[in-house]
């Protein structure tokens, strides 16, 4: 008989062994994943503080390693909330520790990303991480490593510095192994697209070759901060339910339902509990595990809850999205851009909002080889991998018949889709693409169709304008010649005046020209 050894591993250990889940699968992917985690933490921190983000990112090469990839120092600095000194070691030295466990939309959710980045750096270089942060008072600087086995920080050095200039923010500096040249393109795309959906952010990036990339902010305006909300019964899972039962102060199940879930009043609570065959007066603590399973299942099937509250969502907004897209695609006045924001909808009890845009015109034609370029975002994070597996690709290539909108296969188009939700329907743990949840798919389809209706008008008008211009051009060429030779032919000195005829040809032109400069509005487009 073989001897079986039982052991428990710490979460840090687990992620150490399974780091590809978090995106650190290979050296070129690692740099991208690290930047992404850290940039997102910084953006979250700035938004929490309600200041337009200033993010400074620098990657420098330390030494080439024998594998062909190199060791890099990665430094990121922001002007966000900062982390209170006592939380710094845990936030950065322990997984599942964080400030974003409420039900509101943020980029980070798991209390994992920053730490796993640090962990990866530590594994590949054996160097400590340095965190510098201030919430407005003193500046605290930690040099630390992660005790992988025990999932806890190991502080090597802690310095407190005077904060004469009143700096607030966080700086993280770590070393990691990676392959910059192979991740360069993705990294640039990531930053550009991040800038697109965060037009109020100012991002500076200095790459290992000393090149400076600057994504300037185009506006100071930021989208409203999402409000934290209680969970909706449709979206609850057994584990969360169990935890709520354990901590609740409610004395009855009816009170429990009203207290911990959104939009549940006394009548609904009672109706629901009856349907779930649970006595409304029962004490929460008396629930057996099978009762909880039954309640969760019943909650999913019960149809009388009011719709999930979307105030926890933070869509970018039509105006900001337009600003961001114009800025990052370098659109000109006469290029076409239509941004559509759908009304909140829900899937499986999670509220979500779809925002979509279509851009088209000379500027797009210049930067593309024709056809449709897709930009995907989830909670304002660009999705860069597995495009053809995702729901947006499916909508663009299957659901929408572009010919209806006068778009041919080589018409240069940019399609932007942003889904924000308390729970993005990611298909994999890698958070790379969204699954085709029917409700989400339908909303994306409707959003794009609605934007495409404007596009159709624009294209029709462009065709008409080009046609009118060509006409005028042709008449402008030939009428004077006819005049000239008819005069010569009939022995006259001066040709007849063709201006009245040209005026008649171009009579309709200014009207068409004016129309093209305004994006067509279609009734009922934004719902």
């Amino acid at each position, binding site marked *: 008989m073989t001897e079986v050894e039982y052991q428990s591993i710490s979460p840090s250990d687990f992620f150490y062994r399974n780091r590809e889940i978090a995106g650190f699968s290979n050296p070129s992917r690692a740099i991208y994943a690290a930047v992404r985690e850290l940039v997102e933490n910084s953006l979250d921190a700035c938004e929490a503080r309600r200041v337009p983000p200033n993010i400074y990112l620098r990657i420098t090469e330390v030494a080439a390693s024998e594998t062909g990839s190199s060791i890099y120092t990665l430094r990121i600095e922001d002007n966000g909330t900062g982390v209170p000194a006592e939380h710094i070691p845990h936030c950065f030295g322990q997984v599942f520790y964080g400030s974003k466990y409420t039900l509101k939309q943020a980029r980070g959710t798991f209390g994992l990303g920053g730490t796993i980045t640090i962990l990866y750096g530590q594994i590949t270089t054996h160097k400590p991480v340095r965190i510098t942060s201030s919430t407005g008072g003193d500046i605290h600087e930690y040099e630390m490593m992660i005790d992988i086995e025990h999932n806890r920080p190991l502080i090597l050095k802690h310095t407190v510095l005077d904060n004469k200039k009143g700096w607030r923010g966080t700086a993280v500096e770590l070393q990691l192994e990676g392959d910059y040249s192979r991740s360069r393109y993705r990294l640039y795309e990531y930053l550009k697209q991040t800038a697109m959906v965060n037009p109020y952010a100012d991002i500076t990036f200095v790459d290992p070759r000393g090149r400076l990339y600057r994504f300037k902010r185009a506006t100071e305006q930021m989208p409203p901060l999402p409000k934290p909300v209680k969970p909706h019964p449709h979206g609850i899972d057994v584990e969360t339910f169990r935890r709520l039962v354990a901590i609740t102060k409610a004395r009855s199940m009816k009170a429990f339902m009203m207290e911990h879930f959104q939009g549940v009043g006394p009548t609904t609570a009672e109706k629901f509990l009856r349907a779930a065959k649970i006595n409304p007066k029962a004490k929460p603590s008396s629930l057996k595990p099978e009762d909880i399973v039954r309640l969760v299942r019943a909650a999913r099937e019960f149809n009388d809850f009011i719709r999930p509250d979307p105030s926890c969502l933070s869509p970018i907004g039509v105006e900001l999205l337009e600003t961001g897209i114009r800025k990052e695609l370098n659109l000109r006045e006469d290029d076409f851009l239509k941004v559509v924001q759908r009304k909140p909808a829900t899937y499986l009890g999670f509220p979500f909002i779809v925002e979509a845009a279509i851009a088209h015109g000379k500027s797009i034609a210049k930067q593309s080889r024709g056809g449709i370029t897709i930009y995907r975002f989830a909670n304002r994070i660009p999705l860069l991998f597995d495009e053809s597996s995702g729901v947006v690709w499916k909508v663009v290539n299957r659901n929408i018949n572009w010919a209806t909108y006068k778009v041919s296969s080589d018409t240069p188009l940019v399609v932007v889709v942003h889904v924000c939700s308390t729970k993005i329907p990611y298909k994999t743990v890698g958070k790379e693409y969204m699954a085709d949840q029917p409700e989400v798919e339908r909303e994306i389809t409707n959003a794009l169709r609605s934007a495409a209706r404007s596009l159709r008008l624009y294209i029709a008008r462009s065709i008409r304008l080009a046609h009118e211009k060509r006409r005028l051009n042709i008449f402008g060429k030939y009428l004077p010649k006819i005049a000239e030779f008819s005069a010569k032919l*009939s022995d006259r000195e001066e040709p*007849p*005046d063709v201006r009245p005829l040209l005026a008649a040809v171009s009579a309709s032109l200014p009207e068409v020209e004016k129309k093209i400069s305004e994006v067509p509005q279609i009734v009922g487009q934004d719902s």
Partner: protein
Amino acid sequence: MSDKIVSDAEKQRESVELYLKQLGNIIYEQIENREFPWIMMQSRSTDNIIYDPDLRQYVLGDRMIRRHSRNIRHIRPFTQLVWTAWFARELLRLRKTSTLREVYYSARGQRDIEFKNQAESDNIITDLETALNTPREEFNIFPEERSAIFGDLTIEYTVPGYEGKRMNLTEHPDGVMIGPALTSSKFVETSADKVLVIEKGAMFTRLVEEQAHEQFNAILIHTAGQSPRSTRSIIHRLNRDHGLPVYIFTDGDPWGVHIAMVIISGSANAAHLRGLATPEAKWIGVWATDIIKYKLPTENLTDYDVKRLKELTADPRYKEELWQREIATFLKIGKKAELEAFSRYGLTYIVDEYLPAKLEGL
């Protein structure tokens, strides 16, 4: 007499110039009246080309079309038409002649008027002919000269520098090229009693060498393939004005047959013009029945030849018995023969035996 000839030509020139000027006037005034200029002319589309059995040639029907500069597709050809009219008027004013090819090249460098190819400029010239009902030769625009004439015919030139000068067409043994000067000349006198039209240059040379013009008392004309309009107009004049019967001698194949027919009945392309067809002319060979009768060396008809022959059977110009018989025979024997085929019986056989026999047989 020669003064009268010259002044006739001069009058004709002036009247054509006036037509052109009037065209300019109409267009000028239309523009002045804030109207997009337009002109009317007979339609030359196939459904308006009708075979007139009395005239024995193609003519244009009554359908008129309007060339309108308001139309985006018409404005360019319309402009080209006005330019071409102006160009023609300049030719007449300067007493210069030009060729179809030259017109095409003269428009080069005229921005936006430039012709894409010569077919385009030829077409515009045909428009101008139709609109003014005047053959292009009267605008002093001639085709490339390839054909020639030889025989006892005295002509008098009307072209500048040669006015009143006379020449007998036997003076040059290669024949005299049928160009603008010859086309515009007057035919003063001839002793010939017939015209012999030959498709090929080599055969023409042979006939001149063999003094066939004396033997047959004929004027010889060489068409160099499908005959140019100026050549057809000369044949027409010799027949109509001088009463000379015309005999046409071509290769024995569908293409030779049609060269003869175009001289006799004109072409659909020139349906807008009169004075080009010679309905009295006779095709004397090489017939399909000659191939059999003279056991001529042959080649097989190609698919293309056969297709063409079948087209010809359906053509209204070919409805007379001779043509139908010969086409049927070609198709039956599946063979064709060139004029040169007679060489198998010696170089002079054609002059000594074949032609006399043929002319006799008529």
